């Protein structure tokens, strides 16, 4: 039985259609990531699933049960918010146990669940503190703990790492992935960050303007994007798009790592900027046809800004898109 099923879900605020015809299945134990630019409706979709917003049209099923008219607390979900949203007047322990208390669960069950969760998240030493006395990373762990203790059928995460600094973000990302493995729970995770999407997801759902653009495993989407938007959104640095030389419209997409510096290549241009990352070197090049292009070279390379370069790539690693941005298969 799928953990979550959405059928023809629409959501409008007044005359603004924020979600359009969303159809989606999350299998039991699957980690699904909604990814898309800011304002595309990811949070709204998550809130519809949680029951914090009503769908204008369509059905939401959680663990096989239609929940359109079920209040959030009875949907068997737990949610982690970007801003942590901890109760400021309650201790860490009380924050984590409030949901279970509201369900009138017995005291010893609450105690064991809180113990277990704080063990997993190494929050044991902080149980009596208040949220104001914790760092950002600790607060986010408490928020995750609050979700874990409820043992929900479905976890919902809304950009949980966005307020953390870069180093902490990577650690917490790994923790969330491990959490998914240990709990083998179904999770829906929203982010605008393609790295998080690629690294965490069993299945990625790419959203744009309230529509699903493509669904698939990270590598499926990376290797086989259905359109220019998906191709450009996944991968860092982003894919290069060059107008077709024959002047018939349409574009060719080449990932930065598929370009090589070689004499007599298909593309020539001038280096405008160099980013030395140590492990990689990114060249920003302006082609002779005046298009910007990024080249990702493995390792360290001594190059000069302003120098001329000639670039080449393998035809079978390039993607072709028509005028509407749809993929053209060859």
């Amino acid at each position: 039985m799928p953990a979550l099923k959405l059928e023809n879900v629409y959501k409008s605020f007044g005359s603004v259609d924020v979600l359009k015809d969303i159809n989606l299945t999350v299998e039991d134990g699957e980690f699904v990531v909604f990814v898309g630019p800011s304002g595309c409706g990811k949070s709204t979709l998550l809130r519809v699933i949680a029951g914090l917003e009503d769908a204008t049209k369509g059905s939401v099923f959680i663990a096989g049960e239609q929940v359109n008219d079920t209040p959030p607390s009875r949907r068997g979900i737990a949610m982690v918010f970007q801003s942590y949203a901890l109760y400021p007047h309650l201790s860490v322990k009380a924050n984590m146990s409030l949901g279970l208390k509201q369900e009138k669960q017995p005291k010893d069950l609450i105690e064991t669940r809180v113990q277990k969760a704080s063990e997993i998240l190494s929050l044991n030493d902080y149980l009596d503190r208040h949220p104001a006395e914790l760092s950002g990373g600790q607060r986010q762990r408490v928020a995750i703990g609050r979700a874990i203790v409820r043992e929900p059928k479905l976890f919902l995460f809304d950009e949980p790492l966005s307020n953390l600094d870069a180093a902490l973000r990577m650690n917490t990302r790994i923790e969330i992935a491990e959490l998914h493995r240990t709990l083998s729970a179904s999770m829906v995770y929203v982010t605008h960050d393609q790295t998080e999407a690629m690294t965490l997801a069993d299945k990625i759902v790419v959203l744009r303007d309230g529509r699903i653009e493509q669904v698939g495993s990270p590598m499926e989407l990376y290797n086989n994007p259905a359109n220019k938007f998906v191709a450009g959104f996944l991968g860092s640095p982003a894919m290069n798009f060059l107008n077709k030389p024959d002047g018939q419209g349409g574009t060719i997409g080449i990932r930065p790592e598929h370009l090589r510096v070689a004499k007599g290549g298909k593309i020539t241009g001038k280096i405008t900027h160099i980013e030395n990352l140590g492990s990689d070197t990114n060249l920003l090049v302006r082609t002779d046809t005046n298009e910007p292009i990024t080249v990702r070279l493995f390792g360290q390379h001594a190059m000069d800004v302003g120098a001329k370069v000639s670039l080449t790539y393998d035809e079978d690693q390039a993607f072709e898109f028509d005028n509407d941005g749809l993929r053209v298969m060859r």
Partner: protein
Amino acid sequence: MNKARHNKTNVIAAHAALIAYTLIALFPVFVIVINSFKTRRAIFREPLALPNADTFSMVGYETVLKQGDFFLYFQNSMIVTVVSLFFILLFGAMAAFALAEYRFKGNTLMGLYLALGIMIPIRIGTVAILDMMVATGLVNTLWALILVYTAQGLPLAVFILSEFMKQVSDDLKNAGRIDGLSEYRIFFNLVLPLVRPAMATVAVFNMIPIWNDLWFPLILAPAEEVKTLTLGSQVFIGQFVTDWNAVLSALSLAILPVMALYVVFSRQLIRGITSGAVK
């Protein structure tokens, strides 16, 4: 204080301005208090002089405590002010929460309707209010005053509080909903503590006019047993003779409870401002 951001002249100028303002604001209070301890003759001869051995007199306070039931007046004023403030804050906050939190038909219109009361003085409706109070038999009860003051305070309270409530994080309220808190618990336990500074502001704004009001006590509750302090003090102001000792003493006494209330609310205000930084 951070030295790099505060240069000396600015600090001195700012303090000078604030001290000057404080002196100006406190001067009338000061004059009232010192004169309340002087003989009648000394009040008129040297109104700005401090009381000394010759001029010191408690006669004003003696008159005040003898004449009429001053403690009862005190109590009446206190009850009316505190209960009115309680209702203004309770109902104002509830209405503000509804306007800020829920999308329903006529939400904006309702907000405008409630805000209208800010611009229309309630005294315009005095005759109608008196009619209603007579019809409901509330004339000469403290409830008459409490109801009127609550109505008078609500528009501004709703206006201010709804602005603040819109800024309370949606995520926090949603977290509460997912944990199964009722809308009432979300309102009382999560939202109200976060808008405490705004509540204190509303309380302070409403407190003084209610405490000092003469109009409605005179019209709605002039009977001896429900007189407020302000109305009670009027017995000393006659058409031909005014007992200035008594008036000044009564005024001095009337300042005390307001000051106590103010201290309570301003503490809240400052605590709210300094602790509000936690997300």
